[in-house]
Structures are given as structure tokens and as C-alpha cells.
């Protein structure tokens, strides 16, 4: 999901790459502030300082909808729940489909058919089945996270070398040991990539799911409600928080990847 190709950890502040990286964000901020001053209409484009005022008091109640932090945590809880359900289903299914031709034949066509349907297209069905509330949101999130995890698990398990499996069998491994000590660790880096991508999509889905009618908490709810009151500075502040949390989790996933799964890149 990253847009940067070069790792920037060892680059100084005045290094050309670092400079190039900050130019566009700076231009956007300057342009935004100039337009905001020219327009002088907080209902269309609030000034930078109005947005920062919201961001800098994250515990202040906003229009009776709760504060930024509690709403962010509510959204996070929902994401984690839906994400865990998706992972719990997609990883075993992916391993099964990659290892067994009959399981693959059984599930593949259905998965191919369901995969291109965007998670948000499930909203009406979710409402019909689970009514308004947590279950509907979890359902949407789980659907969003499910397919990237499934596809990466399939890929990861298929990339496990036959040599690795046969060596284990020759050393006396049972089927269970082959699964736990060769296939799972061998596929782990790719499965992890699936989890990272899946989490990113789940995070996008929660915000959308919270805009469904009848929701009464979460960042998606907060920014939608702020729209109804013309509080554009809260909308933008909410969007910034959504972005920051997304980046934060992506960073965590990548850090684990670098620490535990670096062998995938180093191996040839």
C-alpha cells in the first residue's frame, strides 16, 4: 500500500529525497490556507487553525457526539472485531484451498464470484439481515478484509517449496507437523501482507459503515454528523485522524514484517 519506493530512514533532513517528499504537503497546506483566507467561508473551507483547534483538543466534546478519541476507539474496536473474524475465516480457508484440490474446486468459483463485489454493495443486505447496529458494521468490515487475506494466504501456501515439505517428511514429520512447522511459517510473510492489506481495507470500511443510518458513534458517524451541522473543520480533522490511524497501523504491520519476515526478501 506504500507509495514510497525508497526507505528514508538513513536520509538527513536536507537530503534531496527528504526535501522532495515534503514539498507537496507544504504546497497543499499553503494553498489551502490561502484559498481559505480568500474564500473566508468556514462552511466550505475552514482555515488551518480551525482544524488544528479541533485536533489539539481531542478530548473536547463535539456537538454532543462525543470527542475525537472515544470515537476513534469505538471505530478501532469495530475494525479489530471484523478484521479478526475475517482473518479467522480466510486463513484456514486459504490454507485448505491451497493444499487440497477438492477444497479448491469446491470454493473457488464462489470466491471468484463474490470477490469483485465492493464491501459497500453489501450495506443494504447487511441492514436487511442484521438490522442497524454493530453486527451490520462488523459484517461489512469482515467482507472488506476477507478477500485480501484469503488471496495472500493462497499465494503464500502455494509458494511453499515442495523441497521444504519433502525434507520434513523425510525427517519424520507427520502431516500436522508439516502444516505447523513448514507450511505455516513458510507462508507467514505472505499471509502477513494479506493481513496488512486487509486491515487497511477494514479501516476504510468501518468509516463507511459508520455512515449507515442509525449509527450513533465512531469517526464515520462523527464526520457525517458534523456535515449536518456545517462543521467542516471537524470533518477535516476527523479525516486527518482517520488517515493518521491508518498510517500508524500500516507502520506497525510493516515493522513486524521487517523484524520477523525479512528472510523472504533476503532469500535469493
Amino acid at each position, binding site marked *: 500500500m506504500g507509495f514510497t519506493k525508497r526507505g528514508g530512514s538513513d536520509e538527513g533532513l536536507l537530503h534531496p529525497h527528504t526535501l522532495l517528499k515534503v514539498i507537496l504537503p507544504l504546497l497543499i497546506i499553503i494553498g489551502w490556507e490561502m484559498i481559505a483566507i480568500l474564500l473566508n467561508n468556514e462552511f466550505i473551507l475552514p482555515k488551518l487553525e480551525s482544524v488544528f483547534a479541533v485536533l489539539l483538543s481531542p478530548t473536547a466534546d463535539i456537538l454532543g457526539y462525543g470527542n475525537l478519541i472515544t470515537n476513534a476507539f469505538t471505530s478501532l474496536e469495530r475494525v479489530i472485531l471484523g478484521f479478526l473474524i475475517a482473518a479467522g475465516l480466510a486463513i484456514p480457508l486459504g490454507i485448505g484451498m491451497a493444499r487440497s484440490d477438492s477444497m479448491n474446486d469446491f470454493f473457488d468459483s464462489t470466491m471468484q464470484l463474490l470477490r469483485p463485489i465492493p464491501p459497500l454493495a453489501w450495506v443494504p443486505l447487511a441492514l436487511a439481515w442484521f438490522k442497524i447496529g454493530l453486527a451490520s458494521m462488523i459484517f461489512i468490515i469482515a467482507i472488506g478484509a476477507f478477500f485480501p487475506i484469503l488471496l495472500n494466504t493462497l499465494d503464500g501456501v502455494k509458494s511453499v*517449496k515442495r*523441497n521444504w515439505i519433502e525434507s*520434513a517428511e523425510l525427517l519424520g514429520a507427520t502431516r500436522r507437523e508439516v502444516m505447523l512447522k513448514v507450511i505455516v511459517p513458510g507462508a507467514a510473510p505472505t499471509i502477513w501482507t494479506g493481513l496488512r492489506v486487509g486491515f487497511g481495507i477494514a479501516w476504510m470500511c468501518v468509516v463507511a459503515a459508520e455512515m449507515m443510518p442509525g449509527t450513533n458513534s465512531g469517526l464515520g458517524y462523527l464526520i457525517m454528523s458534523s456535515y449536518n451541522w456545517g462543521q467542516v473543520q471537524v470533518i477535516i480533522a476527523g479525516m486527518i485522524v482517520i488517515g493518521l490511524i491508518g498510517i500508524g497501523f500500516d507502520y506497525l504491520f510493516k515493522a513486524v514484517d521487517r523484524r520477523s519476515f525479512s*528472510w523472504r526478501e533476503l532469500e535469493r
Partner: protein
Amino acid sequence: MTLTIEHLSKQFVKNGKENVEALLNISIDVRDEEFICILGPSGCGKTTLLRIIAGLDHPTSGRVVIDGTVIDSPNRKLGMIFQDYSLYPWRTVNENIAFGLELQGVPKEQRAAIVQKYLELTGLAEFGTSYPYELSGGMRQRVAVVRALAIDPKVLLMDEPFGALDAQTRNKLQYDLLDIWGKTKKTVLFVTHSVDEAVFLADRIIVLTPRPGMICETILIDLPRPRDRTSIEFAKFRRHVLDLINQPKCSLS
């Protein structure tokens, strides 16, 4: 240890219709502690032969018997070293070598002691905590040999293990393998297409024909070890083997 290969034949079904004969009526009586090289051109089925002996493939007819047991699945008495590196990249050298012992439920301290013994035997002592990707191809194959040896199999099956290495490393590993073989008293079945390698290593060379693989010659190499590749005797044997494999009955099928 007794290992006999009795009238092995193997047919493949290719593209769902054609029957391809890979191996035809192969019989070998392997003596204990013997070093056998199976020599043949690419595609003669020598890898298939080794995989059947290891229990990874099944013969169409015939059987492999070790100590009275017919092989139909992998067996700890038979260790195998593949041409491609088969080490687990997420495990250190120590952990790779200990893997077979771990599967047997050998306690941790005992595992460490056995690993240490083999690391020293093979001059790998300082690489115990390295990961495979930190090692050269030659070192990785050394570790693969040690991993197979650690569970103390009776027979080592080696499928062109040095085929991907440069000539210098290859010579060094051949020398080291003979050293390990001398110290551990294993029986070795070593597949190769290099006459030089076979003459350097083997007590007995079994020459296979191109597809279908049949035994066309068995050559005893009674040169004393260590063998000198540059000696006249070595050259004579090399020439003898080359003459034999170039006979019509060995080169045509």
C-alpha cells in the same frame, strides 16, 4: 543394514494420455557402508529412482526393501539431500540441523549437543546462529547434509547435490563428503551426470541409459582413497567409464 532395489519400473502418464517409461527393471543390491554413484544423462530418470528409494514416489512395479521393510513412504533410515537448497530460511543453521531431532521429540539440551557435534565434524561451528541466506551455496549444502545426518539415517540419498556449485566449491565438498562418509559410516547413493565426480567418489558406479533408464553397466572403482584427480590411475578409470558409457548399448535406447 541391507538395502535392495528389486525390479523397479516406473511409468508416467504424460498429458493424460501417453505413457512414458521412466525406469525399466532396475535392480541394485546395496552393500552396507557402500558409496554408489548413479550416473546417467539428463532425463534418464535417476532423480525418479532416488525419489522412489526415498519413499517420495511410488514405482509402477518392483520394490525397495530396507532391513526387511518395503518402502512406501519416507522412512527415517533414509535421508535425502536435494539439488536445490531445501533449508528453512526462517530457521538458523542450528535450528535447521535440529529440526529432525525436534520432530523426534529429543529434549533441547540433547539436541544442542548433537547439533554441536555435527557442526564441529563438518567445520560449520562458527555458523550455527547464521541464517541460510547469509551462507554461500556450498555452505548451505553442507548444512543440508548435516541436517540429514543429525537423525542418524542408515542411507544418504543425494540428488546431484553439488550440481549448482562452481567447480572449486564442488571439489571441496566432494572431499568433505568423503571425509564425513568415512567418519559416520553411512551408505550413500549419489546421483550425478559428471563422470569425474562419480570416479572421484564411488566404490561402484551404476550407469543408466537415456529414457527409459535401465542399468547398462556397473563399474567397480577400486582406487584407494584419497584419490588424486590428476593421477594417471584416475585418468585411466575416467577413460574406462567414458568408454563404457559411450558404447551403443548405454547411449541409445
